[in-house]
């Protein structure tokens, strides 16, 4: 018995580490898809979001998200500040598959993801301090409150046909996506993105970095989805690995085909976003889908990403990394797909999925709009135009990401 408990717990800790490495994936992807003059700023945000998420989750977040059975079926619960190990929690008395500490850390690694998603969408123009204030409020309160609705036994879990979100297409990815949308709406487009009524792209400065980031995210997703089985159950974990992999692959191909038809180019960034779209799409039902379901979900997600990127660009919602298309659009799609495909597919499930999508959407969008609005009226959320043109690395950090390269304005080869 002890060996089985150790095996389960070991897998959960490995999954925790895999989710951790996703934060490096986000950092690399966001770095690659933005300009070199804003690289320190992007990395700084990524390097502070995770610590903020981990600390707020330790102080109160975990106990808001998992307040205990007393708050079953409700909208909000709180089990007190800090972490305290329950009796017998190291030997299977807390859960059959993991210790209290493992539970905390696995969930804590998820928490910061929501704010990291926002970071990419608002990149290259948001004031650092305002973004950090937003992160503390959003990751500290908004994310665990929404998480409790489903994973903490709240009202979405208590519906007659319970809302289903296996690893967080809605609970994690849409939560980040809605805030990204609110931030982008209040910030406005980057300087120079729209010129004389035309879209003028601002290409990211490193396609290799973007690619490394996406592969790291894919790698980490095996922990994100595989760990969400919440045990090392051989059948379920391996099924989740297969659906996750096939959806990511189908996402890439869905994006490739759509990009060829719609925008007539072999755009690497679209294929990269397509992989992520497929991953976000399968996340809600990774343990409920068969092989064909997973591939269909991925293909549709990949296509949706390309269409959404073009659509948001035309709507003048400037999202440098495509975070809204990937995490919001595909998050909604993946959540809905649980009612359309796989073991749970039914009319009642579709209704429950819609209830979940809408309640999370209304809450997250409204709260983040409010936070950004108050920040805009007080601290300000956008850097000056001069700072934006010069780059946030110098403006916010007084340093450059590539000091020895940037200083050679004209490189002469002879």
């Amino acid at each position: 018995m002890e060996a089985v408990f150790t095996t389960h717990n070991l897998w959960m800790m490995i999954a925790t580490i895999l989710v951790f490495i996703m934060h490096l994936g986000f950092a690399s992807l966001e770095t690659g898809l933005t300009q070199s003059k804003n690289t320190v700023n992007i990395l700084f945000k990524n390097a502070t979001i995770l610590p903020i998420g981990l600390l707020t989750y330790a102080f109160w977040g975990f106990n808001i998200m998992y307040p205990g059975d007393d708050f079953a079926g409700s909208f909000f619960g709180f089990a007190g500040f800090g972490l305290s190990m329950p009796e017998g929690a190291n030997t299977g008395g807390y859960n059959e598959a993991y210790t209290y500490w493992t539970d905390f850390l696995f969930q804590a690694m998820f928490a910061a993801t929501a704010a990291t998603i926002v970071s990419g969408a608002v990149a290259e123009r948001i004031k650092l301090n305002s973004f950090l204030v937003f992160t503390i409020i959003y990751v500290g309160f908004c994310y665990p409150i929404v998480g409790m609705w489903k994973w903490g036994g709240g009202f979405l879990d208590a519906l007659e046909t319970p809302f289903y979100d296996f690893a967080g297409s809605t609970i994690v990815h849409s939560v980040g996506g809605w805030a990204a949308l609110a931030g982008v709406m209040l910030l406005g487009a980057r300087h120079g993105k729209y010129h004389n009524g035309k879209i003028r792209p601002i290409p990211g400065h490193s396609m290799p970095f973007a690619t490394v980031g996406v592969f790291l995210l894919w790698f980490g997703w095996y922990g994100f989805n595989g760990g969400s089985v919440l045990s090392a159950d051989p059948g379920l974990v391996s099924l989740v690995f297969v659906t996750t992999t096939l959806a990511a692959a189908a996402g890439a191909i869905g994006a490739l085909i759509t990009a060829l038809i719609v925008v007539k180019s072999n755009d690497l960034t679209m294929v990269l976003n397509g992989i992520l779209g497929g991953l976000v799409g399968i996340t809600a039902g990774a343990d409920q889908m068969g092989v064909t379901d997973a591939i269909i979900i991925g293909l549709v997600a990949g296509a949706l990403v390309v269409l959404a990127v073009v659509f948001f660009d035309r709507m003048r919602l400037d999202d440098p990394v495509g975070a809204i298309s990937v995490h919001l659009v595909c998050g909604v799609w993946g959540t809905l797909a649980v009612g359309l495909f796989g073991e749970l597919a039914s009319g009642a499930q579709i209704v429950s999925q819609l209830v979940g999508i809408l309640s999370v959407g209304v809450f997250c969008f409204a709260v983040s709009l409010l936070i950004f609005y108050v920040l805009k009226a007080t601290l300000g959320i956008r850097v000056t135009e001069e700072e934006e043109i010069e780059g946030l690395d110098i403006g916010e950090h007084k340093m450059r990401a590539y000091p020895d390269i940037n200083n050679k304005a004209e490189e002469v080869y002879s």
Partner: protein
Amino acid sequence: MKKVEAIIRTSKFEDVVEALAEQGITFLSFYDVKGHGLEKEYQTYRGATYDVGYIPRTKLEIIVTDEFTDKAISTILSVAKTGKVGDGKIFVTHVDEVYRIRNGAEGKDALN
């Protein structure tokens, strides 16, 4: 002595340098330049096609004695040509003095 400056297609750079060397012209500087002209350079990124705002070219700077000037010009004219818009231009100016830093040689001696 003359200075022959030529803005050429980067894709023709190696051919031109080779052909110049065959003519005995081995002393030159070059660098990548960005410019405006009749042509436009289009790229696509995330579904939008856009004018990058400049055309990339390579610029050669060759200092030659008068006897080599025509060779340099005719070589570039023939080798760098594709016949399409954007093949580039050649500018020739007079050079008053040339010194070799190693030994202080002047004029023609500094070039050979």
